[in-house]
């Protein structure tokens, strides 16, 4: 019987049963240890200034308080900046944003610790904060120097273009709002060592930073991550501080310490998606073919560099999206503001670049009176003369033309375009809009050394398999996918495989689970480990039964030695008896990639992930309210390892992107305090935001031409940007509402208020 439960099988998430029964354990659900204590962090109340005096005595005297620390109590290094310095774990002098950690409290309960931190008396010398992105641009207030990418001569191309126009686009940031807040539990061990259980996408970095702040070496710190209750980039660098605080207290007080953030602390103290203020100068032909673009992309980084250099780079890498731009110049600014340091968030700057060129396309279509889809298709890359990106990587195995052609038909684009027009002609108040937008997203960490992964596979003498690798599970189904990969290699059922928590003492020096790379790199490393064991078994069986190596076959739970059939368990037992090592480490490094940032040339990406979406929206021109009525998506995941998991990523990514572009709005007051610091004021999509008709398909016959794991493609981030179709559809509806008086300058997010403002400013008087 053919066993189909491996590659390409829609297995449920490995923890699905535990999710629905409540048995799945997150950091804060772990059984409490005797003497376990709880930490909470005291934060600044001002955006910019200096600490003059700090009286923590009332904190220390509060009920249940055991210990209080400030910067001078940190035994090792204070700075926990992930790439560049600039993030003090606790500050004792300079304050650069509201919510910056200043001290921490250890108490007998989480509630007591939270109450105690409110009792500190801190005096500040106030300085005027820079809170506005435009102000930071004007003052050249940067966390990192500007960087420019170019190909050809944009100025010349613009000058000779028949049509030329400029525009500005404000793109809002986004709170991750993972349902599980940041949490870490540190447990002191023998010999001054420490174990940290943390909700982190980046256990190795947590390990390194805990070691640094404690003055330990990395081998004295073990970090464990079983699963996260969502992460989305928000636990790539932003989880480490809480591990460090818990670890410092744990060693000082020789007790287990949990540091978890309340929802408000989490929203105030951790970084978000960068908001951007982008401007463009575009030239095109009568037919709408883009001749040149001069971009300035300005990302709001907050007070410190964090990952912003790479994030703004990725915005620059994606402001071409799917389109060939013959002459282009892109300047990327990393602006500093006195706000929390912005960080990775699904798409990592890519979405903010991509949405800008989609606005450009819409403006070209509007200017020339053509359908935006026609302009999109006209400007697509091809595989011959229009295949060079602004960073000089050639676009190959490009599935977008095929995707768009198919989606146009599947989603019935042109008939619906007519239906939308007809609807808008007879409806004065309610208007519909329609848009198809593509996504081309580069896959690989743009920082090349991160493109490596390790794995550890054990086969026990009863044939059961223990699998470990450097990737972390945040809900994306990484564990089930990798167990499917290992199961395929051994031709056993995935049920034979136990997936274990990510641990720095099992697989060292891991990269964060980020950049959509989880399955690509960890899957390959696991495959490499499994293959080593498999080859040893083949060698052993070939010798034992005296058959050629290629006469040993693994198939459907059995191992065939010529005609002889053995179960995998029998083989494992025999191999063990035959003193064969059944444990192996695996390793993978992404091939082919290189990038020279000095010249802004190279091949930063192994390949591109592609997809496209058609969105139809309905807007109310009296209130700005908007509903997404239908979405059709066709997405290329290569050969899917698990189509259910992949479709889950696509749908979830799309709705998360929809939130970023419609209802999720971050707001600060004039003193730099976050106003939207709870789910009461910060609205992520809820169930009624899911379109009534939501058709998602995977592109068929789409094996990745790069030798990725089972020819699959990464799927974590790219689908988020499919939601740009909804944002463009809203503008399409606004154009209908405003009677085409001028091109609507719609910013993101397109909240009801923004939509109504846009309708008014575009010329319709209600």
């Amino acid at each position, binding site marked *: 019987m053919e066993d189909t439960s491996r590659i390409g099988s829609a297995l*449920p*998430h490995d*923890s*699905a*049963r535990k*999710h*629905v*029964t*409540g*048995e*799945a354990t997150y950091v804060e*659900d772990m059984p*409490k240890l005797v003497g376990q204590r709880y930490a909470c962090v005291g934060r600044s109340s001002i955006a910019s200034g200096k600490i003059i005096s700090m009286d923590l005595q009332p904190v220390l005297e509060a009920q249940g308080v055991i210990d209080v620390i400030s910067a001078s109590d940190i035994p090792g290094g204070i700075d926990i900046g992930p790439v560049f310095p600039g993030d003090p774990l606790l500050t004792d002098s300079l304050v650069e944003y509201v919510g910056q950690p200043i001290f921490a409290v250890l108490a007998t*309960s989480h*509630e007591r610790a939270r109450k105690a931190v*409110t009792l500190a008396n801190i005096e500040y010398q106030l300085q005027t904060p820079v809170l506005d992105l435009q102000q930071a641009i004007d003052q050249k207030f940067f966390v990192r120097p500007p960087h420019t990418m170019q190909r050809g001569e944009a100025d010349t191309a613009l000058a000779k273009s028949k049509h030329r126009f400029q525009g500005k686009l404000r793109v809002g940031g986004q709170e991750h709002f993972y*349902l*599980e807040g940041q949490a870490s539990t540190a447990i002191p061990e023998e010999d001054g060592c420490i174990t940290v259980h943390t909700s982190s996408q980046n256990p190795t970095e947590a390990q390194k930073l805990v070691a640094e702040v404690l003055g330990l070496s990395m081998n004295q710190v073990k970090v464990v991550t079983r*699963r*996260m*209750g*969502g*992460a989305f980039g928000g636990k790539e660098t932003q989880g480490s501080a809480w591990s460090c605080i818990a670890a410092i207290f744990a060693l000082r007080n020789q007790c287990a310490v949990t540091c978890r953030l*309340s*929802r*408000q602390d989490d929203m105030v103290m951790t970084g978000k998606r960068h908001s951007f203020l982008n401007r463009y100068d575009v030239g095109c032909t009568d037919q709408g073919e883009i001749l040149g673009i001069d971009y300035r992309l300005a990302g709001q980084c907050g007070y410190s560099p964090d990952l912003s250099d790479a994030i703004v780079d990725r915005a620059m890498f994606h402001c071409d999206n799917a389109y060939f731009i013959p002459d282009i110049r892109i300047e990327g600014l990393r602006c500093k503001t006195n706000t929390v340091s912005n960080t990775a968030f699904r798409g990592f700057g890519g979405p903010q670049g991509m949405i800008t060129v989609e606005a450009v396309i819409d403006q070209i279509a509007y200017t020339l009176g053509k359908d935006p889809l026609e302009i999109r298709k006209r400007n697509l890359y091809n595989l011959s003369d229009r295949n060079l990106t602004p960073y000089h990587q050639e676009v190959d195995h490009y599935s977008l033309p095929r995707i768009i052609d198919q989606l146009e038909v599947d989603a019935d684009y042109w008939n619906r375009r007519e239906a939308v027009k007809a609807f808008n002609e007879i409806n004065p*108040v*309610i208007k519909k809009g329609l848009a198809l937008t593509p996504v081309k997203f580069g896959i690989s960490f743009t920082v090349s050394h991160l493109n490596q992964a390790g794995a550890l596979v054990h086969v026990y003498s009863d044939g059961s398999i223990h699998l470990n690798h450097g990737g972390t599970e945040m*809900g994306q189904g990484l564990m089930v996918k990798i167990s499917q990969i290992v199961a395929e290699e051994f031709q056993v059922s995935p049920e034979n495989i136990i997936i274990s928590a990510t641990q720095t003492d099992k697989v060292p020096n891991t990269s964060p689970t980020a950049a959509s790379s989880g399955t690509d790199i960890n899957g390959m490393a696991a495959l490499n480990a499994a293959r080593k064991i498999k080859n040893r078994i083949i060698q052993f069986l070939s010798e034992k039964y005296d058959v050629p190596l290629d006469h040993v076959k693994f198939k459907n739970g059995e191992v065939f030695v010529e005609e002889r059939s053995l179960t995998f368990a029998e083989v494992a037992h025999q191999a063990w008896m035959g003193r064969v090592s059944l444990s192996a480490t695996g390793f993978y490094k992404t091939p082919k990639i290189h990038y020279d940032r000095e010249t802004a040339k190279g091949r930063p990406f192994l390949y591109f992930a592609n997809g496209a979406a058609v969105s139809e929206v309905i*807007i*109310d021109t009296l*209130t*700005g*309210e*908007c*509903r997404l009525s239908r979405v059709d998506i066709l997405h290329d995941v290569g050969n899917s390892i698990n189509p259910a998991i992949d479709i*889950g990523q696509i*749908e*979830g*990514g*799309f*709705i*998360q992107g929809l939130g970023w572009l419609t*209802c999720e*709005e971050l707001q600060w007051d004039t003193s730099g305090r976050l106003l*939207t610091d709870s*789910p*009461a*004021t910060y*609205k992520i*999509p*809820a*169930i*009624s935001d*899911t379109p009534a008709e*939501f058709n998602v398909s995977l592109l068929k016959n789409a094996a990745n031409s790069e030798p990725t794991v089972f020819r699959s493609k990464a799927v974590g981030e790219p689908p988020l940007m499919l939601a740009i179709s909804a944002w463009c559809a809203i503008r399409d509806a606004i154009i209908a509402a405003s009677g085409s008086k001028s091109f609507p300058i719609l910013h993101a997010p397109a909240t*009801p*208020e923004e939509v*109504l403002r846009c309708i008014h400013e575009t010329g319709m008087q*209600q």
Partner: protein
Amino acid sequence: MIQFLLNQEKIDLPDRPADTTVLRYLRDELQLCGTKEGCASGDCGACTVVVAEKQGQALRYRAVNSCITFIGSLQGKQLITVEHLASGNELHPVQQAMVDLHGSQCGFCTPGFVMSMFAMYKAIEQSLGSLNQAELRIKTQYHLGGNLCRCTGYRPIIDATLASVDSIAGDQFSRATQSTCHDLEFIADAVSAQNTASSMHPKNIIELNNYIRQFPEAPLVAGCTDLALEVTQKLQSIPLMIYLDQVTELLEVDESKESMTIGAGVTLEQCKTLFTEHWPQTAEIFDRFGSYQIRNQATIGGNIANASPIGDLPPLLIALGATLCLQLGDTQREITIDSFFIDYKKTALEDHEFIVSIKVPLPLPNQLLRIYKISKRVDDDISAVCMAISLTLSDTQDTGILDSKVAFGGMSAIPCRASRCESVLNHGDLTEYTIALAADAIEQDFSPISDARASSSYRTRVAKNLLKRFLLEMSDPSIATRVDS
């Protein structure tokens, strides 16, 4: 001592501070960590549990947010958490559907969703008549609008919910109904259980007044959906509470030819039924009022007494010309609802006075009523602007306006009437001309604030436009005025 059932197990909970939430009790004391804390403010639903109460010989199942539910409210009820749904190795149908249809990714919101789905499953199991797929989908949104998921985009959760109610066979809870009812009766009969040192549960107004005299500092609590935030967000202590949820007089509903009188302790979920019977068009406000979990807890009296400028019921009640019956000691008085709100969070209630009931005049044949809620999100959001309008025309054939009440939430420090707007309407007809003048008058009536929900200018513009929407809906039903239409 608080007595309740934890699933089928009878719990005698020794006294503890009244402000202990069910969530903290489950997680910290019982180590039942399946129920998650996502926000501790009743906004995400990760902590959803189900509370069952006896109703005749049946059990009524309500999903509530355990993060903002205090343990005192469990008195005499059955608490069901995610750990109790499976029967041995056999998952409950709602759990099985979530596994089969890939309804979980990170899994953190899943227990909350599963519990909301369970409450819907029970509601459908107990309801008469069947719903078609479209109606079931609407019902799913109604029940799950208070549960946030950041991973899935909800589609598989909707599918799982629909699949789980596709063919309902009795589950372990329906099989245990008789014994559960028996155990709950036993608890109700145990007199000692009624009063703990921290949570008081008066059965009638006389007992209530006694407690008020005895514990003048203890707040009167009903749904606690707002008060609980003082504890979980502002870190205040509220060691004593007097619960209103068992005071008989506050739960009564009375109807005469002219009016309907609703006890202050009636939940919003029950109010929906009462109001939509007379004013079907008010369904849209009840469907979007907080979340299902909140509507199960929050009461009409609480929504009024809270005096929030953005409560969604006051504008409706003002437009309907409701009056309130208040009681202080043994003395009752009646006041109109629009004189109840004095200033931001300040009401006409004297110390220790409470709302007994709300009297709402029933509709007149030539009365036009609409209530509109505008917010960033459809589900579980607070209004940027909420407008309720009631126009009485001189007769059904005419457009001449005899009387108008136009009330707003979100436009000022209290829910209040647009008096200049009303006076324009009162002298005019239901025509474009009058409505345009009335809309302009709103600018004189209010100078709304700008906050995280909306700017002042948006609020004003929308308030004016809602009058135009009203006119369109009254004069030409063929014109689409809603994005949901």
